[in-house]
């Protein structure tokens, strides 16, 4: 038969613990010792603090609160909170949310790491030496990236050329730095020169100076600096194939006229073109410009040939015939109206324009300017122009000639310094007593004031002839030295594109 004793409170005999029986339940306080508890105890009913609890494996299944002590056993479930202490065991679950791991603590092997968003700013330490033996996808070599010649404007064999205007012969539009031509159509007169004015890293530049203004620009007016590139040098671009490469141009430029300019590339083989605007925002201040043009898969590919492939054109003025359409910002068949849309500057009504540091290369990245030795650059330019005398020397022996008769002196040129692009034209400034033949049996000075003419010529050698001032009948078949006798004399070979 059940019996009961109803009391309010039981006290330990030593006063170390009490059991209080109240209307809401039983409260034990002080030291409580027990070997087991029966029944279920809801976690929500465990309130207050449990210090230094020793919970043997695998008693704990879910801990939703914080653990501030050490866990020496395994955690087989998920940890959705933060771990601020050290983890010395293995973590075999997902580390998707691991953050702020010091690089110094990543000492093991990270297999198959996928770093897809690593930015350059995160690579702040020193990179170890990395072998390039297994690098793939490298599309070009570091050398010979620059397709164009004389990008630093260091070679200027012709010197300053004045009076370039509408109707000037194509080969007389070259002046100042080699390989740069000023094309003028119905718009002013200009001087081209090499200047000792350049941004850091360069020393010389091309200068275009308007010397006779045309303030009323004709609709058909054109004014641009042109650098023509031979097909031989463009095969690498794969232009006209399905794998056509992008082309990136960079150059430094300055002008006394701010505004928008056009840089254009013109495909001579297919009559296709592409343009990009660039701005000069500060007058008389060097600014670097970079632009990339997508590869052109249309048209015929460039074959190995010594004819003109691509012209790089820096427009300095354009009539409405070239500005009235929509800018050809992708390669397209020629439409004149789309060539120069957006050009706001007109150097033809006064002004100047400087340029240096020009580099055209394949790819979509403007790499550092590729410097070449002066001798190397000169050699490349000599495929298109060779000066046969030094203009600073008042008297210079430039070869040997002979009188073929009373009224003719032959001047064999021998082998050219490099094979020229085409059988060259003889470019010359002649005048009274500018040249002479003398020495040997010819005796004293026999001046040559008339023009030099081609007797025969090829890409590698040739001979000239001229009419002597005096009758040389008494010196027929006699040899003598050919001399330049004036600093105004010029003699060169030109085979520009």
């Amino acid at each position, binding site marked *: 038969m059940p019996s009961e004793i109803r009391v309010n409170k039981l006290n330990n005999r030593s006063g170390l613990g009490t059991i209080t029986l109240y209307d809401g339940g039983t409260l034990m306080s002080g030291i409580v010792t027990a070997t087991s508890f029966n029944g279920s105890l809801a976690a929500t009913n465990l309130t207050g603090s449990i210090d230094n609890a020793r919970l043997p494996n695998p008693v704990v299944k879910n801990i939703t609160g914080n653990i501030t002590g050490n866990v020496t056993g395994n955690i087989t479930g998920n940890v959705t909170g933060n771990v601020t202490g050290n983890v010395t065991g293995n973590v075999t679950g997902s580390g998707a949310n691991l953050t702020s791991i010091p690089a110094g603590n990543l000492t093991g092997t990270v297999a198959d790491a996928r770093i897809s968003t690593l930015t350059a700013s995160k690579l702040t330490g020193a990179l170890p030496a990395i072998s390039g033996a297994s690098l793939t996808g490298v599309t070009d070599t570091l050398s010979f990236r620059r397709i164009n010649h004389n990008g630093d404007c260091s070679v200027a064999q012709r010197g300053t050329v004045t009076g370039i205007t509408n109707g000037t012969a194509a080969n007389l539009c070259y002046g100042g730095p080699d390989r740069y031509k000023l094309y003028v159509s119905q718009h002013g007169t200009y001087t081209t020169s090499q200047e000792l004015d350049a941004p850091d890293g360069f020393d010389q530049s091309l200068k275009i100076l308007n010397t006779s203004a045309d303030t009323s620009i004709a609709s058909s007016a054109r004014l641009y600096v042109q650098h023509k590139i031979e097909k031989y040098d463009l095969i690498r671009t794969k232009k006209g194939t399905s794998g056509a490469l992008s082309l990136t141009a960079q150059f430094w430029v300055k002008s006394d006229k701010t505004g928008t300019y056009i840089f254009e590339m013109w495909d001579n083989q297919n009559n296709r073109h592409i343009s990009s605007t660039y701005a000069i925002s500060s007058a008389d201040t060097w600014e670097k410009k970079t632009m990339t043009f997508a590869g052109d898969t249309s048209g015929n590919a460039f074959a190995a040939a010594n004819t003109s492939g691509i012209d790089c054109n820096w427009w300095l003025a354009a009539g409405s015939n070239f500005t009235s359409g929509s800018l050809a910002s992708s390669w397209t068949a020629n439409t004149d109206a789309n060539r120069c849309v957006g050009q706001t500057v007109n150097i033809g009504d006064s002004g100047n324009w400087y340029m240096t540091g020009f580099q055209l290369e394949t790819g979509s990245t403007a790499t550092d300017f590729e410097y070449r030795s002066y001798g190397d650059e000169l050699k490349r330019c000599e495929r298109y122009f060779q000066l046969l005398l030094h203009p600073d020397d008042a008297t210079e022996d430039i070869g040997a000639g002979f009188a073929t008769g009373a009224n003719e002196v032959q001047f064999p040129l021998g082998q050219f310094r490099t094979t020229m692009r085409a059988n060259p034209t003889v470019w010359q*400034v002649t005048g009274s007593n500018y040249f002479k033949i003398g020495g040997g049996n010819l005796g004293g000075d026999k001046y040559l004031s008339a023009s030099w003419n081609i007797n025969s010529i090829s890409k590698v050698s040739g001979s000239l002839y001229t009419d002597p001032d005096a009758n040389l009948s008494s010196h027929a078949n006699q040899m003598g030295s050919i001399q330049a006798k004036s600093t105004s004399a010029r003699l060169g070979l030109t085979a520009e594109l």
Partner: protein
Amino acid sequence: MAITYKLKKSSMQDTATSVLREDDSDIKLSIPLNDPNNTDYQEYLEWVDAGNTPDPAD
């Protein structure tokens, strides 16, 4: 701009081998007649095609 072309033949040749171009500038060009890829020669041919005639060789 006045442009003249004059065919030139040396005593060692039977026919003209070059043409001398002169204009208002002080630069003269002796242009070979044996290379179609010479751009001065191309310009000369355009001048001829336009109805002009060079001065004959002496």
